[in-house]
């Protein structure tokens, strides 16, 4: 998704673009996640700012007319349906409302909703909820379709697409500037290379000799049988975890429950750091199901038809790497978006394109600097790219065994 967005904005900016992927379109995490475009879940800070900007860009993209008729939003199943965060009891509601107040100050539209309001918005929601907050800016797309059609638009603007081609090296010139990439099929010369390799972004960075700690974080999604409309918005529970000992008050959220245009309800996603372990985790599926049934009791009888998994690209501080790498001029990073890469893709691509054409991005990218972990690398500490805290390191070779499959609805 991120690569498609970069290609789209760069091609539109008049650059000659070649997209190289070792798999098919949407064969990575984009095809193994969900398509929530959320502002509701982000606390005030750089990620929220990026998300707000991206939400705007998504809206513009969705309205774009396609040559074959229809809009990008229609083919990518863009729905500005809004998000509803639900609190089970007054304590949680208080925490949620305070959280939303902070978001509002940062530019988010958030509307408190009482118990009756919840029922009006979601008639099948469990009766016992205290209240919630409605976020009209939350939206959704079908990520694979969004990526494919964005790439198609990029190609119409002149970009070339090379699928099934593995990048095995990054060429540099005498000064250490990027000069192109080497693939299993040959060389592609280019003064700028964008690393949009998602969860494998650390490995790509390593090919260019720079350290970028992108690690996999597993997620499962449950998909139900197709249903008549039951869930109207993106709904998830805000849980208030009062940790008395540390006196911290963290807001914790559970799985998002959402309907899709094709009928199935999606429930996801879990988060675990287990390396690239693909094993189906029964306890995780149970928990996802329980969270969904707690919100929508009617779902108890509904069959889960399938489950799938993906590996989010995450970085130690949970922020992506966006922008040119000062350690390797000509190398631009656009990866590590963890659980928000679909939402954050347009803004990422947009600012990368601005940098590529030499404009100064109208946004502060400093928090996303790709060299911000240099100290960890130097100290030999931190986490090695491609590895994980609890799971085994993945093999250095990017083979089919590190590919993802499964599937996605959203």
């Amino acid at each position: 998704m991120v690569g498609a967005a970069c290609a789209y904005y760069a091609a539109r900016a008049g650059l000659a673009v070649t997209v190289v992927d070792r798999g098919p379109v949407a064969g990575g995490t984009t095809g193994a996640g969900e398509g929530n475009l959320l502002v509701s879940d982000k606390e005030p800070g750089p990620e929220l700012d990026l998300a707000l900007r991206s939400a705007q860009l998504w809206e513009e993209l969705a309205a774009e007319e396609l040559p074959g008729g229809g809009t990008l939003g229609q083919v990518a199943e863009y729905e500005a349906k809004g998000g509803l965060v639900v609190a089970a009891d007054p304590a949680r509601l208080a925490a949620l409302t305070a959280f939303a107040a902070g978001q509002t100050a940062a530019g988010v539209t958030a509307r408190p909703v009482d118990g009756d309001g919840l029922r009006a918005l979601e008639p099948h929601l469990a009766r016992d909820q205290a209240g919630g907050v409605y976020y009209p800016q939350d939206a959704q797309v079908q990520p694979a379709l969004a990526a494919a059609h964005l790439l198609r638009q990029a190609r119409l603007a002149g970009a070339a697409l090379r699928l099934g081609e593995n990048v095995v090296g990054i060429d540099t010139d005498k000064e250490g500037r990027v000069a192109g990439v080497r693939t299993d099929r040959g060389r592609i010369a280019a003064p700028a290379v964008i690393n949009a390799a998602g969860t494998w972004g650390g490995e790509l960075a390593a090919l260019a000799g720079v350290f970028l700690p992108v690690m996999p974080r597993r997620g499962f999604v449950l998909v139900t049988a197709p249903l008549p409309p039951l869930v109207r918005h993106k709904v998830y529970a805000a849980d208030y975890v009062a940790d008395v000992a540390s006196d911290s008050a963290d807001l914790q959220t559970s799985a998002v429950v959402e309907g899709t245009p094709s009928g199935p309800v999606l429930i996801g996603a879990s988060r675990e750091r287990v390396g690239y372990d693909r094993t189906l985790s029964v306890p995780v599926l149970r928990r996802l199901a329980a969270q969904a049934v707690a919100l929508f009791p009617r779902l108890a009888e509904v069959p889960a038809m399938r489950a799938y998994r993906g590996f989010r690209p995450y970085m130690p501080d949970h922020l992506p790497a966006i922008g040119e790498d000062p350690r390797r001029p000509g190398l631009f990073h656009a990866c590590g978006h963890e659980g928000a890469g679909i939402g954050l893709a347009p803004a990422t691509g947009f600012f990368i394109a601005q940098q590529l054409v030499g404009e100064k991005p109208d946004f502060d990218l400093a928090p996303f600097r790709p060299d911000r972990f240099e100290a960890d690398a130097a100290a030999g500490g931190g986490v090695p790219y491609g590895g994980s805290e609890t799971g085994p390191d993945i093999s250095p070779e990017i083979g089919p065994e590190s590919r993802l499959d499964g599937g996605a609805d959203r």
Partner: protein
Amino acid sequence: MTDVNDVNDLNDGVRDRYDLAVIGAGPAGFAAAVTAADAGLAVVILDAGRAAGGQFYRQPAAALRAARPDRLHHGWRAYTAWTGRLAAHVAAGTINHLTDHHVWTVERLDADAADGRGLAGAGSATAETAASPGTLFAVHAVIGAGGATGRAVQASAVLLATGAYERQLPFPGWTLPGVVTAGGAQAQLKDSLVVPGRRVVVAGTGPLLLSVAASLALAGAKVPAVVEAADPLRYARHAKALALNPGKLIEGAGYAATLVRHGIPVRPRHVVVAAHGERRVEAVSIARTDRAGRPVPGRERMITCDALAVGYGLDAQLEIALELGCGTRREPDGGWVLTVDAQQRTGVPGVWAAGETTGVGGAQLALIEGELAAHSIAATLPAGGFAVRAAGASRPGRAMSQTAQPSAGDGGETGSADRVGPVAAAGRSVGSAARPGRKVAKLVRRRARLRAFADVLQQVHTLPERWSDNLRADTAVCRCEEVPYAAVRDAVTDLGATDSRSVKLLTRAGMGWCQGRMCGTAVQCLVGELTGGEAKAAPAARPLACPVPLGVLAEGAFAPAAPASGTSPAPAAAAPPHAERPADPPD
């Protein structure tokens, strides 16, 4: 509506833990279960069906009181002998046969037991788990098709005997009511004594077609033609393998004789190019194919009918195996099956496989593989297995020594030379796997012969090469999501899909209820054609082997050590939030 009688009675003698869990009660599964129980193992069978038999030995529902079910079956004697032994073990408590149990996944516990990952049903077994060396699995099932109860049982070893479903190819009109799978017509006939129509054309490729046509004719349906895509001349190239399997030839000849008696023409090198009708099938067009497998223009004919039974071979049911990490290989006809060694072991410790899951080859081969797997399992598990035996469960060996003791060698018509008498079987039943040496050697030889035969069938009955020439832009490739051929084509040529999975993501083909079981082969072939080469092919992963109601899944979500099977209260609403990582945003 009933699914089974024991739906709500969960205290039906299910133990905490077994030596062996057999998934699937077809010939491979029941032969393995009986053989393993004879060897002294505590066995549980979980099967979606309501009686042992699987696809081949499907018997009429008991309430239909069929006096001569054998008339719809080949090798019925072998079946009754095996199921007699099964019944004796069930009566003795050495096999627990859980019918109408749909297994959705098998979970490995041994690796996870240490970090306290619980499962519903773990119960008191945890301490024991830590103490015992070998492997440990939890088998998770939903009771009843669309049932509202779940159950998990534990076992040290698992045998995957989940069989196959029929492979299909799309053609215009294949979604019309009255177009059914050949095996499905057979299944409903054997099970419920009905035929899908009065005039039923049988079409596709493979040995199943003859048997289906024969059964339909015997059951009173008119079969205007058997339309077989393959060229029978190809058999000539494999005379040796054929000659070594006289029994199989006789079986085939038996079907052929029935067809002749009923005046049913077989049309080799013909394919159905379209089914016609308004609200149901009223006729089919068939065409002769040229050497390239392409329908010859102008050589089409219409046959009126009110049903079409069609199938293009079998695809093994691998979802549970794939999630466990078992290795796969491709068969001559392109289907994916599990790789097993000579002892039917998959590459995953503690997991064996037998029957169609390891290679499509028919019921006799499945029986033999099941038996061989059981011998290997019995020899692998420490004597007597790990299972805590129910006190006083008597061994059924003695009771059974009166009954005939069949072995897989009896699976058919040739049989008696391979018969193992009561003595040998009773010898096993005292609990030793040490003596089956000669027997095993014989089984191994028979397996090799039957596999060679199966290989020939597969090489003859490949998919017609140019089947996709029949597709129109609007022909549904995926029945569930109604994805037309044009959408699949555009996904590849216009949107950048290069494999089945990306086609699925971009078109929804394979994303519907059946999860690509019906369209998977077709999509894979189409991607190959459209990308102009061998598309990256892999068997489709389906983490849930069958639908699971969310309520069943949710059971025990926050109470890891709770007993299995619905006794734990609905946990979610009242449960404390888990603190895996606070402040986690959703995606």
